[in-house]
């Protein structure tokens, strides 16, 4: 286990380095470089040159990279001129919203997708499987903004159950009124169920082909006991990895969901930043999400190794 931990953590550190290089390259890919990111697209060449001299952006790139990462370690993610706030502050305000949205969506999706996917595998190519497959395909195939708006029409406009738009309030206040944030969570959950359940279905089908399943059945175990005692553990393992790995996907969905419902998270921040060409914010959010993904999939892999000892020896 120690060797596995060491190797996997080393990989994560290498990936973190890669992520920082990508974001650094993105800053310099901007026409005009970081100066334009800070000063906006109307900055004159003279102003840009002065800015570059003042902040050391005329030095060699490796030197700039080292300075930039040193700043990152001190929590300096840049400054949004458009919003007149440090990027770190902006992200700090929005992060709890995303933890709630992505966290609940992932949790609900797992609670539903694992039994559903297993049911599909046990009833493979029968009515229940076709119906569930059909539904999850349709949810997966709907552009998420369209699904969100259909839910608004259904649950907010027609049934008056939930708020169509998330009111402007802190996430703590919103949590006290679940009906205010129900729709964005439901939308993201439905898409995520579709994403997970198919995966559980195929990993369960694979588990069911193993010889030990025949042995368990021969011992006279019912299907329910077989599923809950034996297959579950085998089918869930890969899903743990999936949760870590799909974080960027779910966050991508969250960007769209947040702009549909005006939900106060990083996605909305990002969308507004993209429209204002507020590059420090775009790049800061990219960095934070990427780091969260790397750490998330590291944790997921460690958890997987705890569940399934075979992973450790490779």
């Amino acid at each position, binding site marked *: 286990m120690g060797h596995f931990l060491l190797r996997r953590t080393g990989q994560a550190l290498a990936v973190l380095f890669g992520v920082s290089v990508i974001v650094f390259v993105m800053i310099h890919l901007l026409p005009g470089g970081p100066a334009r990111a800070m000063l906006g697209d109307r900055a004159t060449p003279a102003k840009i040159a002065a800015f570059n001299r003042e902040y050391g952006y005329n030095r060699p790139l490796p030197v700039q990279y080292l300075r930039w990462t040193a700043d990152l370690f001190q929590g300096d993610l840049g400054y949004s001129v458009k919003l007149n706030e440090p990027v770190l502050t902006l992200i700090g305000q929005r992060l709890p919203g995303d933890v709630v949205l992505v966290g609940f969506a992932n949790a609900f999706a797992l609670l539903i997708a694992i039994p559903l996917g297993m049911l599909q595998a046990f009833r493979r190519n029968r009515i229940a499987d076709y119906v569930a497959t059909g539904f999850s395909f349709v949810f997966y195939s709907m552009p*998420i903004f369209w699904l969100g708006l259909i839910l608004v029409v259904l649950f907010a406009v027609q049934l008056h159950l939930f708020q169509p738009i998330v009111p402007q309030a802190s996430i703590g206040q919103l949590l006290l009124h679940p009906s205010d944030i129900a729709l964005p969570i439901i939308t993201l959950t439905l898409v995520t169920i579709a994403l997970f359940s198919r995966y559980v279905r195929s990993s369960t089908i694979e588990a069911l082909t193993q010889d030990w399943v025949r042995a368990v059945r021969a011992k006279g175990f019912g299907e329910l006991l077989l599923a809950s005692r034996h297959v579950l553990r085998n089918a869930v393992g890969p899903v743990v990895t999936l949760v870590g*790995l799909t974080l960027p*996907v779910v966050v*991508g969905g969250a960007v769209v969901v947040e702009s549909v419902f005006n939900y106060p998270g990083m996605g909305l921040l*990002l969308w507004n930043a993209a429209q204002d060409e507020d590059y420090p914010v775009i790049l800061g959010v*990219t960095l934070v999400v990427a780091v969260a993904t790397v750490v998330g999939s590291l944790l997921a892999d460690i958890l997987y190794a705890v569940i399934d000892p075979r992973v450790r020896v490779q």
Partner: protein
Amino acid sequence: MTAILSAEGPAPASLPTSSSRNGLAALREFRRNRLGIVGALIVVSMALFCFVGPLLYHTDQIHTNLSQVHLPPGPHHLLGTDGLGYDELGRLMVGGQSSLEVGVAAALIATAFGAIWGAVAGFAKPLTDSVMMRVVDTMLSVPPILLLLFLATIHRPTVPLLILVVSLVSWLIPSRLVRGEVLVLREREFVRAARLFGVGRPQIIVRHLIPNSIGTLVVNASFQVADAILLLASLSYLGLGLPPPAADWGGMLSNGINYLYSGYWWLVYPPGVAIVLTVVGFNFIGDALREALEVRLRRR
């Protein structure tokens, strides 16, 4: 949204290898899969609708006609007109062309590039392999939509640019899948024999490793098309789709939902249904192909 759904995660070693011999068996198995047939029918009809349709149903999709906006479906405009006076049915065909073109082209480029990257990594020395796969992990950690948002804010979107940016975030999964296959294949007798005969690495990769991973690649490519179309729709919703007079389904849908409460249903449901049908179609095909190629999982 993404191709992660279509990938079988971190355990590709269990994926099937195909040869031309069981290609036929796979085709037979595919034909028995009803969902696969449905998917193929949907995709073919959609392609005919988008590319042959305009030859039969003539509309002007270049010039706006502001005296004919928001007309409900009728004899002159079978699906009505949109806010700029374009015929909605004709626009569905034109928009579908760009959605399908971006989806298919991006999937092909991503699959080809990913296959080569994965095969080279899997067949290289451990250090090279490790570096190449960390590059893939790095790219996978950056949410595709952020990368696309960034690129699309710098450049004005066009069909080739969209193809490029969607491929840029889509080659990662195929590369992982192929690497997994190659790690198994490189130990097989025929590959060892080829090396003993002094066949060069590039040739082994092109002649032996990639052809033997083709089953996995084909399955993945059909999911990639579906995901590319969805990703494109999200981009359009975020305002980074093709600017008019060009059109794509996602852009039409996100324009349409502005009129959700005005009762212009013909601007909302047709593009939405077109996206769902096409994406479902490609997913059905991919699923059927996967089940057909996975010998172990076949019904006995």
